[in-house]
């Protein structure tokens, strides 16, 4: 009985362990990368620079930055503006929340740390939420290299995307299926009407508008 109480107390302490805020650090830079801390002004980023929560990271043309977020790596691609919203960590879990205003990122979330990862990247039009995975995200599309990503609209309608698959936002309801994306990539669309109006069709011999043959059996 004592053992059970002791284990329960330990589990309770672990569960209630205070989550502490973390900072991200820049580990790699190519080209022009700038940081905007809350209340501050734009400064050029350098390798080793600390990125505190609510700091905006911006990359220029042909420029990239790699951020170490403690329990994950994030490559910020060119012409991107994003904000680190929240980086929390306790003994059993890590919470990472990012907001992608414009551009694209490549995320590598390590799921071998023995902790629960609550990782989400939000954009004005969608959210990618993951637990241990590698993926690319630009707000409108999400491509998964490892693991599973829950890709959803701001209203909360979403679908799971797995390894090697891409989903694109095509409606305010559920993001498009992975096959819809593959089909669009592999097929050249001849119709140029942006609203999807069909092209003219010519009948083959089976399109029947002719006479009928009657046979009495």
């Amino acid at each position, binding site marked *: 009985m004592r053992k059970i109480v002791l284990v329960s107390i330990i589990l309770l302490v672990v569960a209630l362990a205070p989550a502490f805020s973390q900072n991200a650090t820049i580990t790699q830079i190519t080209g022009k990368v700038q940081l905007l801390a809350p209340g501050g002004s734009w400064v050029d980023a350098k390798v080793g620079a600390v990125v505190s929560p609510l700091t905006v990271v911006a990359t220029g043309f042909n420029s990239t930055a790699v951020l170490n977020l403690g329990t994950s790596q994030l490559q910020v691609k060119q012409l991107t503006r994003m904000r680190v919203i929240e980086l929390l960590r306790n003994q059993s879990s890590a919470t990472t929340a990012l907001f992608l205003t414009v551009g694209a990122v490549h995320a590598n979330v390590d799921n071998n740390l023995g902790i629960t990862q609550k990782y989400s990247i939000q954009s004005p039009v969608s959210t990618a939420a993951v637990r241990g995975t590698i993926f690319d995200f630009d707000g409108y599309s999400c491509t998964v290299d490892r693991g599973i990503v829950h890709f959803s609209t701001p209203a909360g309608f979403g679908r799971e995307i797995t390894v090697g698959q891409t989903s694109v936002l095509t409606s305010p309801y559920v993001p498009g299926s992975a096959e819809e994306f593959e089909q669009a990539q592999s*097929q050249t669309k001849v119709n140029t009407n942006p609203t999807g109006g069909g092209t003219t069709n010519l009948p083959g011999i089976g399109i029947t508008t002719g006479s009928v043959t009657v046979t009495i059996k």
Partner: protein
Amino acid sequence: MRKHGLLLLVVATVTCGTLSALDFGGTIDNTSGYFTSSSPNYNQANKLALWFNTQLGPHVFFDAQVSGYYQNQTTYGGTSFGLYADLDRLDLRGQIAEEGANPNLLSFDFGRFAANDPTGLIYDQGLDGLRIGLANPYFSVTTTLGYTGLTIKPSSSIIMSLADLNGITTQAQYFGSPRAIGMLSIDMPGLLLRQDVALAAMAEVDVRPFMANNNLLSPGTTVRSPTEGGSLDSQYFIAKVSGPIVGSLFWNGAFAVQTGQMLSYIVADGQYEYKPILAYLATGGFHLYAPQLLKLAVGLDATYASGDRDFATFYEGNTAGNATAFIPITQKTVAAVFSPQIDNILTGSLSVSFKPLSGLKNPNLSNLQFEVKGIPFLRPTTGPISATSFLTAINGGNTQYYLGTEVDGSIKYRPFSDLGLSITGGAFIANPAALASSAGALQWGGKVEASLSL
């Protein structure tokens, strides 16, 4: 005059002020083809489409498209449809999202909008009516009610009965088959193992019995008419599952049951009687994509539509018992040369497509696409199929099940975003035993399509 000018200015200002977003444009499409099996052999169709989209409010949009057509076909019973115009779309639509812990999305379409069933094989055409959808993160429910009788004949592909066929060949009739359509569908994206599940119940009602001078035959008529029939009402119950298997390999499978009633000349009774319809459709396929291998896509698909061996003719030909031939509402083109209706047909398709220049960084070259398809055709019963030309022998009591195989090839190219081009060629190699003696075993054809955005 000044007052009129001022009024016009005020109206224009108010109108433009309320249109928070405005987008418009046009496209010109041309299709020119030569087919050994059609008459005339050379066909050409042109379409000029003008479209207009605007946002009327935070949640309300308005889409319209009007098209002018010119074609050389004379397949509408002598009615000249060489030059005509039609409304492709006139859609007042809205989407209202309620965000939060339990998000909902209410959507509606009112006017003329595109509609289709989950398989795309039973109904796939514009519809005049109302569609209302309600979605939450787990499923969406959509209700559609509409009418098909305001679509002009060349734009309508509904030929389910002899009355529909008579409408096509009647000079005075300008519009397509008059049918009321209702559909209730439930979509559950990613329901289990990331598979999308769709369930639908659909009904079509022939409204001719409610019209005066409908020229429909009455039950009990003892004199058989080869050109007149009754009304045909049917219901469809559809289930479809689709999703990934592993990586870039996907599958889909659908099953539909058709019920309803059809006027049938029952030979044993010597009179016309309404008989129940009980028919089936099954379709499915596997699709593999390898974008790293020249955007390779391989598809293997199959479709089965039940038939009825006691049908004497393709339209309303039931002569005994229930009518078991599956009758879709709209027609679907499944091959370039030989394209029978999805009725008393078992067909498959093996397709391979790739983009040989996809490795180039130049987007104007990388989208060049080649595609080859092999499409065998069989019929599940010795009942008639919809092809009327050189396969007439089949509908005259031939007992062959294998009809033939078609091989199609196409090249598609989009040199610019505003210009799309394609060349399609096909050859249908018929089963010689299924042919009329005067017909050739090989039918072929080809067409060129061009689409230019203005």
